[in-house]
C-alpha cells in the first residue's frame, strides 16, 4: 500500500520525501536555478485584458448607468489584483532539479521553499487551462505517493513550456516514459498521445452519443433557471431588459394560463437540456479510462475535459469492487452509473465515478474489465428473494399510505385543511407506493461468485454491487418483527471501502446464515447451529 509521507519536516529517522521550509538546502550549490517559462507573463497580460473587457464594454461602448455596473467593476478589479499577484509569482519563483531532489523557491513577503526527493516521485502529470494550452504551456504536478486521489500534489510548476514539461517527465520518471513520446513528436495532438505512458490499456473512450443519457434529468430545469437568472443580470448590466423582451414576444394574456405555463415549461426545459448537453461536452470531452502501470502497481486513470484536462488516478491496490446503479425512470434506456468501491475515497466524491452516464452495454464490459476476474461476477445469476419480501414491502406501502391519510383526515377535521385532502392523497399515494414496492421487490438479488459477492437492491435506483470477499470486515444479520413473521432477514456486510455497508435485504431466513457464512468464510461457522434458523449463540 502506498505510504503516506508527511509534508512538514519532522525528526523522522530517515529523510522525508517532501520538505517545506524557508531556507534552501545546501545540496549541490552549483546546479543553476531555472525560471518558469516567459510566456506565463503574456498569458497573464491577456487574462488581465479579458477581465477588463466586460466593464469597458458596459461603460464606454453601451453607455450604461455606472451604478448598475458594479459587479463588472468588481470583476475588473479582481482581475487586476490577480494579474499582479501572478506576475510577482513568476518573478520570484525558481526551481531546479538536482541529483536527489527537485526544489522550488517562491514568494515575496512569505518565502517558501519546497523540496521533493526524486526517489519518492510516483507521478508527473501535465495539464493546462485553455489560455495556457493556446500558448503551449503546461502545468506540471509532481506527486510523491501521498493520498493522491483527486489530484493533490507534492509540488506544482505553473507553468513551463511543452518541451520542458516532457523533458521533466522523462527525467523524473525515467526511461519508461520516454518511449511513449518519441513516436509522436511535435504532432498537433500533443495532449493525449504524447503523455500516455507505455503499457497503458484503454478501457473506455469518449462516445458523443453518451450526451443523450446525460441531457435529460430533473437538473435540466435547475440549469435553465440558473442560466436565465444569470443572463437576466448580465443583460441588465449592458442595458438590455430581458424580462421586457420576453413579455413582448407574444400576447400571453390572450393565450391563457394553461398555454403560458406549458410554453414556459417547454422553453425552460429545452434551454436546460441544451445547457446540460453543453456542460456534458465541456466536462467529458476527450474522456478516456485506462489502466496504467506505475512503479507501484496499476492505477485506473480517467482523463477528461474540453478546456481543462482533469486526470484522476485510482490505485488498483485499494480497489474492492464495482457498483452499477440504474435509475428507475430511465431503465427503459438502460442508463447506468458506474462507480468503483475503493478505500481512501469518500463515496460521495466525484472521483469514485469512472464512466459518465451511459448505457449498460458500455458499463458492463468496463465493470468486468475493472474487476479483472476470469468469470465476471456480474454475469453470475442472482438468487431471487422469496415472495414474502414482496408482502413485506406491500404492507409497508399500505401502512404508510394509511398513516398519511389518517394524519390528513385528522388535520382536515380539526384545522382549516380541506376535508377532501385525505382521499385525494390516497388515490395518488396508493398506486405509487404499490408500484414502488413491486419494483423494489423485483430488484432484490444476491449471489457469490468466485472471489466476489454480489448484492442488488433498490427501487428508485437499482444498485448492483460486486464486492471482494476478503474486503469484508464484519457481517450483520438483522430481523425485525415483521421479518420474523414472514421468515425473512437482512444480511449486511460492512467493509472499509465505498459506502461502508452493503446489504442484501429480505433474504429467506434459512438462507441468511448460509449467505453470511459465504461472505465471511470461517468466522461465522462456529456461531451457527444446525437448524434452519438465523444464528444463535452456542
Amino acid at each position: 500500500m502506498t505510504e503516506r509521507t508527511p509534508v512538514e519536516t519532522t525528526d523522522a529517522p530517515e529523510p522525508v520525501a517532501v520538505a517545506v521550509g524557508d531556507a534552501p538546502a545546501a545540496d549541490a550549490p552549483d546546479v543553476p536555478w531555472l525560471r518558469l517559462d516567459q510566456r506565463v507573463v503574456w498569458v497573464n497580460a491577456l487574462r488581465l485584458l479579458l477581465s477588463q473587457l466586460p466593464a469597458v464594454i458596459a461603460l464606454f461602448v453601451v453607455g450604461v448607468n455606472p451604478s448598475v455596473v458594479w459587479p463588472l467593476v468588481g470583476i475588473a478589479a479582481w482581475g487586476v489584483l490577480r494579474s499582479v499577484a501572478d506576475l510577482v509569482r513568476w518573478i520570484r519563483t525558481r526551481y531546479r532539479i538536482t541529483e536527489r531532489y527537485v526544489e522550488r523557491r517562491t514568494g515575496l513577503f512569505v518565502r517558501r521553499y519546497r523540496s521533493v526527493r526524486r526517489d519518492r516521485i510516483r507521478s508527473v502529470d501535465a495539464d493546462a487551462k485553455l489560455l495556457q494550452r493556446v500558448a503551449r504551456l503546461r502545468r506540471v504536478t509532481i506527486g510523491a505517493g501521498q493520498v493522491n486521489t483527486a489530484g493533490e500534489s507534492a509540488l506544482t510548476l505553473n507553468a513551463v513550456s511543452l518541451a520542458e514539461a516532457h523533458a521533466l517527465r522523462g527525467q523524473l520518471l525515467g526511461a519508461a516514459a520516454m518511449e511513449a513520446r518519441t513516436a509522436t513528436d511535435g504532432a498537433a495532438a500533443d495532449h493525449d498521445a504524447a503523455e500516455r505512458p507505455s503499457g497503458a490499456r484503454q478501457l473506455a473512450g469518449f462516445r458523443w452519443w453518451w450526451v443523450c443519457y446525460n441531457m435529460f434529468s430533473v437538473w435540466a430545469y435547475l440549469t435553465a433557471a440558473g442560466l436565465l437568472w444569470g443572463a437576466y443580470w448580465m443583460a441588465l448590466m449592458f442595458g438590455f431588459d430581458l424580462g421586457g423582451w420576453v413579455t413582448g414576444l407574444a400576447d400571453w394574456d390572450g393565450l391563457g394560463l394553461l398555454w403560458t405555463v406549458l410554453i414556459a415549461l417547454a422553453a425552460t426545459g429545452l434551454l436546460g437540456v441544451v445547457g446540460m448537453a453543453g456542460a456534458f461536452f465541456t466536462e467529458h470531452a476527450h474522456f478516456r479510462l485506462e489502466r496504467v502501470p506505475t512503479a507501484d502497481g496499476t492505477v485506473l486513470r480517467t482523463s477528461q475535459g474540453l478546456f481543462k484536462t482533469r486526470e484522476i488516478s485510482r490505485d488498483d491496490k485499494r480497489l474492492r469492487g464495482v457498483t452499477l446503479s440504474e435509475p428507475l425512470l430511465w431503465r427503459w434506456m438502460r442508463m447506468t452509473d458506474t462507480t468503483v468501491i475503493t478505500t481512501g475515497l469518500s463515496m460521495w466524491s466525484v472521483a469514485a465515478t469512472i464512466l459518465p452516464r451511459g448505457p449498460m452495454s458500455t458499463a458492463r464490459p468496463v465493470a468486468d474489465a475493472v474487476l479483472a476476474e476470469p468469470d465476471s461476477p456480474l454475469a453470475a445469476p442472482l438468487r431471487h428473494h422469496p415472495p414474502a419480501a414482496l408482502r413485506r414491502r406491500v404492507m409497508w406501502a399500505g401502512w404508510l399510505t394509511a398513516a398519511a391519510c389518517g394524519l390528513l383526515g385528522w388535520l382536515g377535521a380539526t384545522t382549516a385543511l380541506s376535508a377532501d385532502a385525505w382521499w385525494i392523497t390516497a388515490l395518488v399515494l396508493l398506486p405509487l407506493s404499490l408500484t414502488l414496492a413491486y419494483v423494489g421487490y423485483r430488484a432484490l438479488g444476491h449471489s457469490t461468485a468466485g472471489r466476489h459477492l454480489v448484492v442488488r437492491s433498490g427501487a428508485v435506483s437499482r444498485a448492483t454491487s460486486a464486492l471482494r470477499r476478503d474486503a469484508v470486515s464484519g457481517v450483520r444479520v438483522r430481523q425485525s418483527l415483521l421479518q420474523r413473521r414472514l421468515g425473512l432477514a437482512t444480511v449486511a456486510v460492512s467493509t472499509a471501502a465505498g459506502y461502508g455497508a452493503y446489504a442484501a435485504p429480505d433474504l429467506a431466513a434459512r438462507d441468511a446464515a448460509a449467505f453470511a457464512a459465504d461472505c465471511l468464510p470461517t468466522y461465522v461457522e462456529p456461531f451457527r447451529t444446525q437448524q434452519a434458523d438465523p444464528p444463535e449463540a452456542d
Partner: protein
Amino acid sequence: MLWAARALSLVTPLILVLAACYLLWSASRTWTGPLLVVTGVLGAAYVAVMPPWRYAVHRWEVTDEAVYAAAGWFVREWRIAPLSRIQTVDTVRGPLDQLLGLSTLVVTTASASGAVTIRGLEPGTAREAADRLNRTTQLTPGDAT
C-alpha cells in the same frame, strides 16, 4: 436494570415536557392533551416490556477468531467481526452505567458501520474481554482496509 433505567431516562423527560406544556400553555391543550395521554400509555408499556425482552435476547461471545453479539428486542441484530479486522477495543461507562456498576464493550473495525457494541457487562468481564482481544489482535497483522 440497565435497560429499565435507559427506558425511563428516555420516556420521563418527554412526559415532563409535555406535562409542562399542558399545564402552562393553555392554548396548546388541544394537541398536548391527547399527546400526553398517548405518550404516557406508550411510555409505560415501553418501560414494562422492553427490558425483560432485551435481556432474553442479548448474547455475546469472544472466541480466538471473532467477536459475536446478538442484540435488540423489536428488531434483532446479530453481528460478527473477525479478530483480524478489529482496529480498536474500548470499554465505555456512561453515567447510567456508572450508577448501576456496569460497562460497555465497543469493538470497531475499519468500516464505519462495523462496530460491535455489547452493553450491560460487568466491569471485570468487560476488562478481561478487552485485554484478551488486545492480546490476540496484536498477533494478527493487517486489517484488510
